[in-house]
């Protein structure tokens, strides 16, 4: 990858971290260097710049893993399996990060680290699915078999996802911003309650994290290919 892009990604993430943390939250905010006061979120709204992009990247990575899994089944080309597993690994990492940031935020907003809110339950299940995915991979030795079985499993797990979206909110009321139980309505992200400067930082962060994912993904896929080559030489 072009070194300029790498420097650019680093700058973007650094800028998001500095701006996201340092800009003060005030009532009646004006100008770029003040955040408005969002009821129900207050100072803790800063988490939007980190938690939401992490969750987004994680979901993106899982979809890429699922896509490459299907491609593998169609073509039986081992390279697709490498891509699938590289992406799933990153997805799991971002998923853990999103869980941790969300959990810390929940401690200060809702009073405890874990409340079995629908979102928390969904991300927990996402962790379970990909935990199971890697356990399954470790239980199969033959390369072809491992690739086939894990692709099939991720497809089966993938088709249950819509049920979580429909089933979860019906079973428990939500605390998460944007869920049905949230008195403030749709939440800061969907309803665009953020001020223009918050929005700008949020979207820059979203782009930054997506690019970071792509960078890490291309690194992983290249090392995986080299490792594969080394194996065949031995």
């Amino acid at each position, binding site marked *: 990858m072009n070194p300029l892009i790498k420097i650019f990604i680093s700058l973007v993430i650094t800028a998001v971290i500095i701006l996201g943390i340092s800009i003060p939250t005030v009532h009646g905010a004006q100008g770029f260097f003040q955040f408005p006061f969002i009821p129900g979120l207050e100072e803790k709204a800063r988490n939007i710049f980190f938690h939401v992009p992490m969750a987004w990247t994680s979901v993106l990575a899982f979809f890429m893993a699922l896509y490459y899994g299907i491609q593998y*089944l169609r073509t039986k080309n081992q390279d697709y399996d490498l891509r699938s597993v590289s992406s799933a690994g990153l997805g799991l990492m971002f998923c853990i990060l999103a869980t941790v940031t969300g959990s810390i935020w929940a401690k200060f907003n809702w009073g405890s680290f874990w409340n079995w809110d629908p979102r928390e339950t969904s991300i927990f*299940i996402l962790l*379970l*699915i990909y*935990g*199971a995915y890697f*356990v*399954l991979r470790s*239980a*199969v*030795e033959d390369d*072809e*078999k491992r690739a*086939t*079985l894990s*692709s*099939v*499993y991720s*497809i*089966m*797990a993938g*088709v*249950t996802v819509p*049920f*979580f979206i*429909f*089933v*979860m909110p*019906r*079973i428990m009321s939500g605390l998460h911003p944007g869920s049905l139980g949230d008195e403030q309505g749709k939440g800061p992200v969907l309803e665009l309650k953020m001020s223009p400067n918050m929005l700008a930082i949020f979207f820059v962060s979203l782009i930054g994290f997506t690019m970071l994912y792509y960078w890490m993904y291309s690194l992983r896929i290249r090392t995986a290919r080299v490792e594969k080559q080394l194996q065949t030489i031995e």
Partner: protein
Amino acid sequence: MFVVTTLSMVMFSLGSNTVPYEILSGMLWIVIFFSAMSGLSRTFVTEEERGTSLTLRLLTKAANVYIGKLIYNTVLITSLSVFIALLYQLVIDDFQIQTQSIFWMTILLGSIGLAAASTILAAIIAKANTKGTLFPVLAFPILLPLLLECIKTTVLAVEGAFFVEAIKDFQILISFIIVMIAASLMVFEFVWND
């Protein structure tokens, strides 16, 4: 035997305490889940162990094998959960079903759903090295929406809700079953012909 062991464990842990019916409904499905897991995980492992899976592959198409196994599992799990449900009502006094129609519909749809999702997973683990322990790990995330829905309608049945109140939940259960079977039919061939 597994059913009796788990049920008596549930009863010992309850003792003479009165337990809310929500928890009792959840426990019923925990008993069904684990009893079903121990039976379902063997679906394809037995074929691999006896060396008959290759024989089957030379006899017929993959889809036929899947449908056969699915029907067998459905019958097995349905009779198992009907047995558990009867026994559970018999031994646990606090668990009184008000709306029988919702309860038995839940048992039926829940059993079919368990069989539908587990058959393909059983085919996956038959090809893996660590067979026994892997199955619940793989099955739990996929079966969770089904189990949550079943627990919810069981609570409705205990509360004495009208059948119409549960129709939306039954629709979700039925669509879960259809999606699972359709997806399994598409991918089964890849697992089977490996």
